[in-house]
């Protein structure tokens, strides 16, 4: 997964994903422009047509951003949404492209074609920074577009590797800032002149939807966490039989990252729950070909070593485990990433499986 980079590692799923992505975008914009021309007075020239396209692409990109922000919590709520998550990056790049089309149209037609620099005009054509109702909302759109650009430009694994997962993840958290900026961009812009309540209602619903999903997913995770019982340095994971073979159970130590305790036959190993790729929840993965496989993009780890099988080089922290009777315990002190640990085993006589 990480030896040498190609532009995009294509496979059938990504192709299908992108094909439906593009189909949706084209469908939306064709319908929006078409319905506008049918229900409103037809434009006589390109300027009003540009305004229609501006609205079509802007609402399309804003809707797509809602979809992107929904995929994360949906996938945390149910594994059925995993196929959406797999290629989320292409979704992000597509959203940037549609947003860029809107930004270019707006900049060219509203700030350009006159006696000044169009890009500069975004900042200077309206100087009412002191007023909320008159605020130059275009600046907020430009900032959001800048964030979407940074994210699209660094979406490739090359950047992930070179920035490190921490910085990369932090950078990609800015998508929430971009969303906030865009909510204000619309509230202080189009909603100041758009008289139909449908627009306000739609945006309010989107806001409630995005916030609600995140709260729900966070709350469910919090519920599932539970308080592990501690016994000296060891914390109790639970009954060996309750961990299904080839699956993991996640424990949350009082301090530090969540731990994935994996069962392979009669053995258990423990490793960080946080995938070295983009922080996916390894404990929600499965053992495939002897490796714990991340549910997000399928990175694989040998559970007893916290390492991807060669030639891959990803490493995560490992933990010591022990089994007393049927009870499984883990020592929550992380060992350096990639440290091999002897798996704990139940003796055959104990195993009822």
């Amino acid at each position, binding site marked *: 997964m990480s030896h040498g980079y190609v532009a995009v590692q294509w496979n059938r799923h990504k192709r299908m994903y992108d094909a439906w992505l593009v189909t*949706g975008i084209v469908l*939306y914009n064709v319908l929006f422009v078409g319905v506008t021309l049918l229900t409103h007075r037809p434009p006589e020239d390109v300027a009003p047509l540009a305004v229609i396209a501006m609205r079509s692409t802007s609402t*399309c990109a804003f809707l797509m951003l809602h979809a992107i922000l929904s995929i994360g919590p949906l996938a945390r709520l149910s594994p059925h949404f995993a*196929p959406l998550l797999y290629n989320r990056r292409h979704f992000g790049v597509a959203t940037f492209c549609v947003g860029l089309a809107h930004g270019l149209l707006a900049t060219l037609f509203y700030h350009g074609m*006159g006696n000044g620099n169009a890009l500069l005009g975004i900042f200077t054509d*309206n100087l009412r920074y002191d007023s909320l109702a008159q605020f130059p909302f275009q600046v907020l759109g430009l900032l959001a577009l800048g964030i979407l650009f940074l994210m699209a430009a660094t979406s490739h694994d090359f950047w992930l590797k070179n920035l490190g997962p921490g910085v990369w993840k932090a950078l990609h958290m800015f998508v929430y800032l971009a969303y906030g900026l865009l909510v204000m961009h619309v509230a202080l812009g189009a909603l100041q002149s758009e008289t139909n309540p*449908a627009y306000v209602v739609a945006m309010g619903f989107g806001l409630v939807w995005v916030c609600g999903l995140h709260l729900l997913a966070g709350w469910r995770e919090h519920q599932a966490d539970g308080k592990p019982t501690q016994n000296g340095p060891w914390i109790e994971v639970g009954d060996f039989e309750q961990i*299904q073979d080839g699956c993991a159970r996640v424990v949350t130590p009082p301090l530090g990252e969540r731990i994935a305790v994996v069962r392979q036959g009669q053995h258990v190993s423990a490793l960080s729950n946080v995938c070295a790729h983009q922080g996916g929840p390894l404990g*929600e993965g499965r053992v*495939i070909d002897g490796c714990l496989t991340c549910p997000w993009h399928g990175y694989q780890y040998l559970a007893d070593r916290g390492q991807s099988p060669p030639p891959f080089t990803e490493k995560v922290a490992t933990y010591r485990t022990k089994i007393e009777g049927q009870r499984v315990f883990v020592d929550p002190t992380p060992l350096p990433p990639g440290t091999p640990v002897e798996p704990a085993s139940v003796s055959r006589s104990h195993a009822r499986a």
Partner: protein
Amino acid sequence: MPEPNDPFYVGYAPLPKRLRPWVLRFVLVWLVGLAGFAVVLATKQQDPGPGEWDLSKQVAIEGLLRVDPYPVLFVHDPKAGDLARAVLLVSEFKFGAQDRTQPFAGQAVRLQGHFISRGGRGMFELSSESDAIQALPNLGPNPEPTLAPTREPLGPCTLQGEIADSKCFLGVMKPGFGKTHRACAVRCISGGITPIFVTRDAQRNATLYVLTDLVGQPVNEAVLPFVAEPVEVQGNLERRGDLFYLAIDPGKIMRK
């Protein structure tokens, strides 16, 4: 949270059978959802209004050209009754037509270009060709008696409304006023296009006033900070032909 017997998806492996109906659902929700939003948002958006800008054919008009301080062509129009009909003049894109029309001020001319109109008020966009303005010597050196607009002072008045650029308001952009159009209006007025004051009655019908300063000079630069905002202005009203002019002190524009 996922359960052990939930289907497990990895992008590079074949799709588990149990996820197939889900993927089908996603595709449906994606397409139907987008189509739904497209139709609803498109039908509910603001009506752009009846502005017209006929670019399909270049036409010629004849009349008396005045540049005081903005270029206006006064023409005979039976629909305007006794009053000479005033047609505001602009150049292409976001530029006024002062410089080009100045040499022909006070003369009868034939202009080449395109009509722009909204709600009965007309404007003419001069073609960029060098012969777009031609003096008409054959109408005689002084066509004033036939086409000269009557200037009728109507006294001082206070008006509430919005400063807009005449070109976009009269039909080029849709909408050509309001918050979202502010930047465009600023560029147009800054580029020399005639600034107008727009008031609306209870039925939202608009009345237009050409804005000048108290001595009849352009106010393009002075009004820029107030464009597209609700404002109140005080000034002296005058009618030239069928067009209202409002002479204001730009220092006394008040935000509402």
